[in-house]
Structure formats: C-alpha cells, structure tokens
C-alpha cells in the first residue's frame, strides 16, 4: 500500500511566490523517506500541505488512500507531525501539551496520561514533565515535539528537520529511535533534512527538491551509485603555477599553490590519477577526499536546476 501519493501539487503563496511547481511523490508504506533540499526549496510547504497546515493551490494528496480533499479526518488521524519550528504552548507544563494533543486525537484522558508517561520517558523528558515548554533547552523542545507527534501512534511520522540544533549524541539516539519505530512498528517515516549524512544513514528512499521541483527521486543506494564522481584534495611537494590537464580528470588549483583539487569520474581509479600526475613530474604528498559523494552530487544537481523557469 502507498502511504503517501502526491500528484501535481502546486502551491503559490501570495505575491506570486511559487513554493511548489507541481510535484509528484510516492512513498510506500513502511518506508523511511528523506526529502532533501536547500533552504527555500519547498520542503516545509509540502509537509504543511500534507498535514493540513497549509492550503494547497492545486493537485492531489492521498494518505494511506484517503484523499485530503474528501477524507481529511482520516488523513489527519494517520499522521504525526514534528514541525520545523517550535509550536507548543510555552507556558503550559509539557505533560499537558502531550495529553492535550492526545485528547484532540480522541484519546480519553486516562489513556492519554499513560501514553504521555511512556513517550516522555522514552524521549528522556519525564523529569521535566511539570516544566513549562519554554523552560526546555532547544534539543529538549525538539524531543517534546517528537513525543507529541507519537502520542496517538500514527501510521506515518513526518519530521521537518528533526535534528536541527541537536547535539551529536542526541542526534545519534534520535536516529536510533526513529529507526526502531520504523522497523519495529512499521511506521512510515518521512523526514526533511539539509544533512546528507542523515539521509544516507537513515533513509531507504530519497527525493531531492529544489525551487519547488523534484529533481531526483529514488533509492538512496541507487542515487549514491549515480553520484558519478569523487573530488580529492592533493597536497603537492612543489608549487604549481597552473592546473595541469590530465584527461579524463578535471583539476583545479586551490588558493594554496601546492594544493590541487581533482575530480575522479566514476570508473576511474585514484592510482591512475596519481600516475598521470607523476608523468607530469608532479609529486603527491598526501591526499584526502574533499566531500561526501552524495553531497557533491547534490550540489551539482542543484547547480543544474538553478535557472528554473518561473
């Protein structure tokens, strides 16, 4: 079954801001899906529409087969949302925030209290249960919103940049927890992120969105194998005055004249690149990869999409 099916979704905010220019997206039930894109790409807008926070301009959205236009109660009931910005009552004890949202989902108060305890404990917030929301640290606030999204045990969890402003240790434990929810409960998870490692570490499928368009969509592993080149930074024994030409590799001088950047296309070996340099009398002292392959790929994709039509 498909958890999410989006067809030709368009969103125009006032003053002709095209946030989404007709996106299509399908997420299978049980998937762990990443929506990847730079600032302003339209990720939060897409998520806002799916979770009924934003009115769409046109197009259709189905959540577990329920159409947003005709069966909004069913779509809402099956979604748990962790938004990008904090949106809880900062003056209320956090346990009330959780039990309130449980109530809005039709969970009786007695059950809601037990659920709140369970999820607040699971997210290490139980000691803070009587603290007001605004007294929490940034990472705790993020976790509060995760607990709140889970309290009605939705079939689909949507997280908009869940690990923004969260330290490495907590990010790790958040990743573990999300993976656990996904694999043990079969909860479909969709998250947006700027961090490519996050998508790479967690997700099975990914869509890359830029300027309101999906520019790449598929399995993370497939995209990785398509990430056609890897860039290396070489420290040389002597300074160069210009970048040498060694086909099929592309080279660039860095600000330091003894550092060279070389793109190695897929299928070419690093040793043949070093040999080619040796043939020019250039000695390589040390070598490191410049960036994550996915990252380079991602930036190139976005670069290609820069002149998008309005």
């Amino acid at each position: 079954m498909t958890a999410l099916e989006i067809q030709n979704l368009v969103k125009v905010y006032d003053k002709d801001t095209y946030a989404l220019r007709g996106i299509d997206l399908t997420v299978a039930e049980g998937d762990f899906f990443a929506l990847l894109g730079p600032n302003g790409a339209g990720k939060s807008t897409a998520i806002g529409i799916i979770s009924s926070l934003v009115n769409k301009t046109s197009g259709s959205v189905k959540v577990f087969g329920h159409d947003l236009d005709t069966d909004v109660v069913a779509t809402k009931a099956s979604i748990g949302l962790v938004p990008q910005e904090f949106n809880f009552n900062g003056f209320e004890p956090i346990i009330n925030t959780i039990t309130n949202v449980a109530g809005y989902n039709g969970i009786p108060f007695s059950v809601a209290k037990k659920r709140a305890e369970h999820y607040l404990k699971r997210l290490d917030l139980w000691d803070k249960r009587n603290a007001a929301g605004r007294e929490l640290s940034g990472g705790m606030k993020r976790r509060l919103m995760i607990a709140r999204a889970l309290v009605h045990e939705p079939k689909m969890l949507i997280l908009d940049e869940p690990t923004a402003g969260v330290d490495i240790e907590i990010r790790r434990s958040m990743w573990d927890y999300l993976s656990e929810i996904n694999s043990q409960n079969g909860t479909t998870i969709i998250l947006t992120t700027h961090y490519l490692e996050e998508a790479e570490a967690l997700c099975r499928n990914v869509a890359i969105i830029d300027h309101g368009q999906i520019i790449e969509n598929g399995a993370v592993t497939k995209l990785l194998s398509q990430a056609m080149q890897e860039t290396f930074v070489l420290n040389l024994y002597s300074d160069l005055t210009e970048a040498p030409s060694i086909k099929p590799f592309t080279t660039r001088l860095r600000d330091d004249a003894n550092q060279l950047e070389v793109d190695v296309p897929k299928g070419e070996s690093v040793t043949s690149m070093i040999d080619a340099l040796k043939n020019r009398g250039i000695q390589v002292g040390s070598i490191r990869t410049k960036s994550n392959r996915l990252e380079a790929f991602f930036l190139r994709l976005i670069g290609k999409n820069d002149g998008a039509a309005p």
Partner: protein
Amino acid sequence: MNYWRLQWIAYCTIVRKEVRRFTRIWVQTITPPAVNALLYMLIFGGLIGSRIREVDGFAYMDFLIPGIIMMGIITSSYGNVVSSFFGTKLQKHIEELLVSPVSNTTILAGYITGGVARGAAVGMIVSLVAMFFTDLRPVHPVTTIFIAVLTSIMFSLGGLINAVYAQTFDECSIVPNFVLAPLTYLGGIFYSISMLPPLAQKLSLFNPVLYMINGFRYGILGISDIPLWQSFAVIMVFIVILGTIAMTLLNRGVGIKP
C-alpha cells in the same frame, strides 16, 4: 475510532485547557471585573444612587446591579476568547489543533464554551459582590440564566472573529475599547431608556446590548424596557450571524492557514 466519540473527547480537552488557562491566571481574568463591579456599586449605586429617586419602581442600586453583572459577562466572554485564541495563533499551537482530526465545529464549540465558562465565573463573582449591596433574588431564574448564557455565547463568537483577524495584541483591544465599551455603557446599564429624549430612545433601539441588558434585568427584577421575546430574538439572530461568520473563517483558514 468513532467520529462522534473522537469529537466529544477533543471538545472536552479544549474546554479543560481553556478553563485551566483562565483559572491559572485568575488575577488577570477574574479579579478585575469583580473590582470594577465593586467600584460601580460603591460609587454609582451607593454614593450617587442614594440621591437618585427610584427607577421603574426599584432603588437605583437594585436597578443597576443586573447591568453591572451583564457588563462583566460580556467583557469577560469576549476577552477570554479573543485573547486565548489570538495567543494560540501567535504561539502557533493552533497547529496542534489543525493537524489533529478535530472538526472546526468542535474547535469553535470548545473555545465558545471556554468563553461562556469565564463569563459564568465572572458573573457569579460579581453576583456575590452584589449580595453585599442588595438582597435581591432573581424573579425569573431560568430566563436569567438563558439570557446570560446566550449573551455569553454571542460575545464569545465575536471574540473569536476578532482573534482570527487580529495580527497584533493591539488589534485585540480595538473592538472591546471602541465598540463594545460604548455600546455597553449606552446599553441601559445605568438608566432606563424611558428617561431619554425621544430621539435617543429610538437610536438606543439599534444598540443590541440594550436587548441583552434588559432581558437580563427582566430575569432578575421582572421589569424591562424591551419585550422579552425581542431580547431573545435579537440575541439569537446575532448568534446565528456571528456563528456563520466564525465557521466560514475557520473553514477557510483565514488568518490561520497560509
């Protein structure tokens, strides 16, 4: 899950949250109207009223008290919903409701009930204060309660509509200060319209608050400038109009959904 059961639980949750809100900040929400009422009763009812002859056969203090209670109910109902709903919007936790399977009718009913609860709390406190000044007991208690609750519903709806449009806290106080206050003060709290010159009497009939205050006064004293059915009719018409507007605004997501 059963749809109606879900909506009922959600409704109770909103009401519980709303009541908790105004009781938690009771110094701001309950005491000011009580202090106001006390001052009115001391100054107008006690000091000045003692030099005024009877109005419609009642001591001025007794004539005054129903209007003072009603004034508390009106301002608190309106104020509760406008500030609570606006705060919910401003802090964005309205989104908790928007993403949940709560219908807009339930949201509206929940907030309106919150406004009525605050109106009732204030109405009772002011009535308690009034007991120090009079030994009046309502002549028609059922009418009294009906008029009070319906008026409270009406002004709660007004507060919600105001909150939907408001962008700043200032915009939450424009209507109460520049529309509600004049209408209430000119709505026959302090006088019977029969004391006014003919033109002012006619103009007063266009003031909806007049119908509520007189309806309420009828409930307590058994006298009114206005036939009771007219009071009910005016309130009901306003509830229907404001309720329709509020529902439409919520359904369209005005001021709430981009």
